[in-house]
């Protein structure tokens, strides 16, 4: 068991591309750290540097307190699960799992015992004589994990291991991966582009963008207190609604297009820094789940929007609406599908399924001000103190 510490680690490729910039992150023993970000943000590069598959341009990497920059993957005592499993197709499941032990020249009986034990943990006992080509995606994934687990490594690395699975299997395997990780209890660095995976699996989540670490925190903190616009937009599904807004002169209200939302006092207790933004432009964020439909007699700030589309999910209605305020969309924070359908001023709200509303009508939302987020227009950083 060991910790992983990366201190100002950089990766610059031969062509000058700076893939990872001053990356500082620590993973405690037994911690499940998820590294999440859009495609091309450098998360896999960071993982591969920990594995020893990529050279570190500058900075220090420590595993178990020892600097390992120049050590081979074998010497680092890490185990890795790849996105496409990377199972040896010409070997059986038992041989795949036992290969690393065979390389260590362990006695055959010991290898067989360890392979059997690992297979039992992963539910692979009936498949030991099969080859990877005869297994389903989920089974192959378990073999890949078994190959890593059997080595009893100091650090467990996983590079989007669930990406190749269908949605239902992915949900099932998420639980499996967490169960196995808790059982082996080693520092785990898990890379994914899926923020739902990140939020549900990680003890802590590190959000990356363009090679830079944006925020490292517990999932709930990332959700409640995103440090910047990118993290705010990236975490949460559907994504947070982000608009350009202007604070009133006394900063007690915010103007969103043609609508003005008064802000309650308790909001300023949490965000005293807002008082410096009188008459200034800010980025206002409200999550879809913080825009319930307003009932008659509701107090507090409301927002009126034109309904463009209603998606009935059974448990809720997802309402796509438009207001006359400019939308803010940080690059890479949302998926291509979301970007493709986004229009100026469009927002998304999640309301009770019994809400009576039709496309083309206007709807009034009761804004949950506790969940409101404010960001500086220039720096994109969250406004707190």
């Amino acid at each position, binding site marked *: 068991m060991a910790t992983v510490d990366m201190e100002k680690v950089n990766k610059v490729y031969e062509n000058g591309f700076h893939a990872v910039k001053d990356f500082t992150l620590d993973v405690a023993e037994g911690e499940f750290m998820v590294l999440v970000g859009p495609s091309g943000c450098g998360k896999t590069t960071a993982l591969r540097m920990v594995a020893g598959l990529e050279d570190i341009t500058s900075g220090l990497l420590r595993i178990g307190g020892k600097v390992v920059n120049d050590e081979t993957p074998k010497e680092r005592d890490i185990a*890795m699960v*790849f996105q496409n499993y*990377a199972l040896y197709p010409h070997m059986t499941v038992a041989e795949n799992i036992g290969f690393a032990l065979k390389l260590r020249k362990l006695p055959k009986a010991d290898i067989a015992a360890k392979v059997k034990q690992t297979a039992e943990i992963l539910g692979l006992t009936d498949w030991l004589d099969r080859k990877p080509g005869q297994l389903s995606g989920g089974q192959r994934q378990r073999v890949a994990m078994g190959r890593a687990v059997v080595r009893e490594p100091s650090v467990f690395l996983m590079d989007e291991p669930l990406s190749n699975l269908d949605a239902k299997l992915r949900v099932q395997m998420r639980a499996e991966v967490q169960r196995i990780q808790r059982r082996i209890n080693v520092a785990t660095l898990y890379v994914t582009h899926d923020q739902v995976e990140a939020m549900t699996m990680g003890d802590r989540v590190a959000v990356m963008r363009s090679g830079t670490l944006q925020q490292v925190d517990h999932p709930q903190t990332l959700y409640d207190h995103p440090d910047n616009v990118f993290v705010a937009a990236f975490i949460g599904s559907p994504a947070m609604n982000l608009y350009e807004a202007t604070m009133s002169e006394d900063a007690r209200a915010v103007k969103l297009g043609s609508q003005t939302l008064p802000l309650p006092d308790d909001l300023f207790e949490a965000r005293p820094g807002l008082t410096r933004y009188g008459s200034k432009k800010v980025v206002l964020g409200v999550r879809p789940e913080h825009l319930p439909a307003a009932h008659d007699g509701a107090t507090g700030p409301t927002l009126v929007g034109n309904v463009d589309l209603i998606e009935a999910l059974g448990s809720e209605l997802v309402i796509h609406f438009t207001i006359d305020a400019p939308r803010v969309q940080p690059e890479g924070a949302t998926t291509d599908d979301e970007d493709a359908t986004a229009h100026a001023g469009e927002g998304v709200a999640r309301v009770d399924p019994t809400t009576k509303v039709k496309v083309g009508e206007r709807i009034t939302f009761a804004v949950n001000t506790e969940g409101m987020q404010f960001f500086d227009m220039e720096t994109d950083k969250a406004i707190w103190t």
Partner: protein
Amino acid sequence: MRKRNRTGWRKVINGVNISGLFVVLFIVLPLYWLVITSFRNPADLGSVQYWPNPFSGANYSQAFNEYGFGSYFIHSVVVTLSATALVLIFGTMAGYALGRLPMRGKFTLMVTLLMISLFPEIAVIAPLYTLEKDLGWLDSYQGLIIPYTAFFLPFAIWILRNYMLGIPKEMEETSRIDGAGPIRTVWSIILPMALPGVFTAGIFTFTACWTEFLMALTFDINLKMIPVGIATFGTPNEVPFGTIFAASVVAVFPIGILVFIFRKFVISGLTSGAVKG
């Protein structure tokens, strides 16, 4: 006009199938003729028979006993197997280096190799003869093994390199993480995965060496290989067709068996080059 779906034998009779049948007959009929003629009585070859009657093994015994075909067969086996083994050993190593190792000028090297392989044999046969004479390699096994290896290596490297390219790089990375060194990785992981390519290159090389005529005639006239041996059966006045046919059947047989056993590799070898999914 409504197009009806054909059923039964009408479904089989169409332009594509009929054309295919003609192509197959074009290839198979001469082979059939070869085999049945080889089993006919040598004295009766003036007449046309579509099936040997009587069935006779005289041509075969004549080929082996009178014309020494057995020794030609052995010579061909020794030279072909040796050259094929050398081509596969060097070809696998070169294919791995060109397909998977970080190296500058790989593409230039590959193109140069291919250009060399396109060089016609006949253009270099004279200087090669002089060289072999000086080395004392005429009428020797190495006199053919070495040139065959040189001539057929580029194509084998090409096939093997393409197969190696198709192996995901995560294989080596996983192997490194598991603790295997480079040699162990190639031996235990890459080579088994590239076996289809090895078989493909092996089949092509075997066939090329087995049927090669010009160098075999030029360098080893007294240590005859099968093609040269068959070509020199009889005299200008007497051509023993039956014996020639029998010897040809024996010559074709090993290749036929090999290609049949490894047929899926031969087909995939012809179409390989894409990265495997």
